[in-house]
């Protein structure tokens, strides 16, 4: 094992921030995190919408949401990335690599999060909804004040799992040549030529630390009293 060949200062810089300092191009772990986290945030918002639509009693809302979820869950993410990157140019529109991966990853994750939100909403006891309606709350108020806060805590473990998958999925970006962590690792490996084990073990370790950290952070949120103390100041 010759880890010292991989773990040079120059290689670490490229792995962590890419060519940010010498060429001004973001890359490496930084790009992976920016891509992963922004798609997580957007997909959570969109997914909440899809999940609420899916749980609606109106068929005009629930059927399109169900079709969306089913369609996007039965296609590999890689295919979605290829659609997002290679389809717009046929209309003469060039989408950047970062944007196309972001769009594909967000649409893909939205379908899964929609399903998680749907499950979370269904897990709230129907007595709570009936009681809220009986007390004179409107439908929207019932959703916002009674159903969603309870559903949120029921969803947290599944959401944490999904977020980790999203961070892992950003690694597919290297297949269209985006300089994310995996691509930089591949480049370092190609330059060294005789140290694939060291290079890929380093990559796997970085991903492991990031994803473990993310799931531990999400586990902190699952403690409801701590959540209230930090975010709601109760």
């Amino acid at each position: 094992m010759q880890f010292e060949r991989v773990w040079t200062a120059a290689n670490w810089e490229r792995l962590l921030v890419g060519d940010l300092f010498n060429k001004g191009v973001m890359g490496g772990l930084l790009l992976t995190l920016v891509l992963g986290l922004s798609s997580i945030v957007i997909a959570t918002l969109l997914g909440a919408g899809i999940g609420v639509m899916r749980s609606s009693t109106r068929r005009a809302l629930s059927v399109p949401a169900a079709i969306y979820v089913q369609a996007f869950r039965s296609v590999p993410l890689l295919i979605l990335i290829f659609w997002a990157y290679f389809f717009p140019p046929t209309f003469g529109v060039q989408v950047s690599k970062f944007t196309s991966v972001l769009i594909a990853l967000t649409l893909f994750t939205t379908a899964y999060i929609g399903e998680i939100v749907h499950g979370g909403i269904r897990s709230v006891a129907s007595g709570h909804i009936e009681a809220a309606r009986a007390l004179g709350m409107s439908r929207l108020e019932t959703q916002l004040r009674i159903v969603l806060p309870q559903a949120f805590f029921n969803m947290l473990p599944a959401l944490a799992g999904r977020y980790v998958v999203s961070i892992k999925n950003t690694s597919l970006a290297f297949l269209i040549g985006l300089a994310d962590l995996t691509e930089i690792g591949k480049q370092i490996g190609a330059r060294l030529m005789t140290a694939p084990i060291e290079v890929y073990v380093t990559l796997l370790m970085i991903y492991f630390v990031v994803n473990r950290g993310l799931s531990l952070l999400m586990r902190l949120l699952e403690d409801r009293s701590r959540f209230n103390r930090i975010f709601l100041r109760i």
Partner: protein
Amino acid sequence: MKLDWSILWGDAGLLILHGLVVTLQLSAWVLALAFVLGLAFGTLRWIGLSVTEPICWFYVEFARNTPPVVQILFWYFSASYILPGWLFLQLRDFGYEFGAAVVALAIYHGAFIAEVVRAGLNAVPKGQLDGARALGLGFLQSLRRIIMPQALRITIPPLVNESVSIIKNTSLAMAIGITELTYQYKHIDIFAFRGVEALAAVTVIYMILCTLAAGLGHLLSVRLSHHITARRGLRPVLTSE
């Protein structure tokens, strides 16, 4: 840009069909191996021996928290360093890409299946094992005849989800040049400039494959839980991934 769907009836169609066969072969191998791995590690974690626990934890956590495509690259590029020389040279003559992808994806999905199996085993009431042991069955015998049949029935829906994601994740094998569906799309795009048509065809095939797999799994879970359904008047629901 004008689309020309007729190319799908020519050589391009044959390439896609060939890709479909490779995708199915890859999925079948990965599913079988991952199931074996998952069953072994899930049961080991359920038993919870202090000797094996650190190894099982390391395997499951490391495999689940790292991207599958990096795992594929790792096994593919380091095969020549891990395997003994004579074996590697033999494998190289036949092309070991397929084997590397199968091993990597099986290890990745095996970890997920291990957690599913462990959860299923934990869901069986503790009294079942105690009862079986008290009636004179050995540990392995009670595991095989009493615990496993109950546990596996619960785990069918998550296992179906896992097989659907195995089919989807075989698309990552194109990273090391396996000629499955996604690779064939790239091939047609580069050599015939008919990317959109090929991509649409490949997308539809993946959708059909995944829907079929989920549907078959649903049928299986309905069949296997028929006695519960009949008794309680409940319909089993497929849980989401």
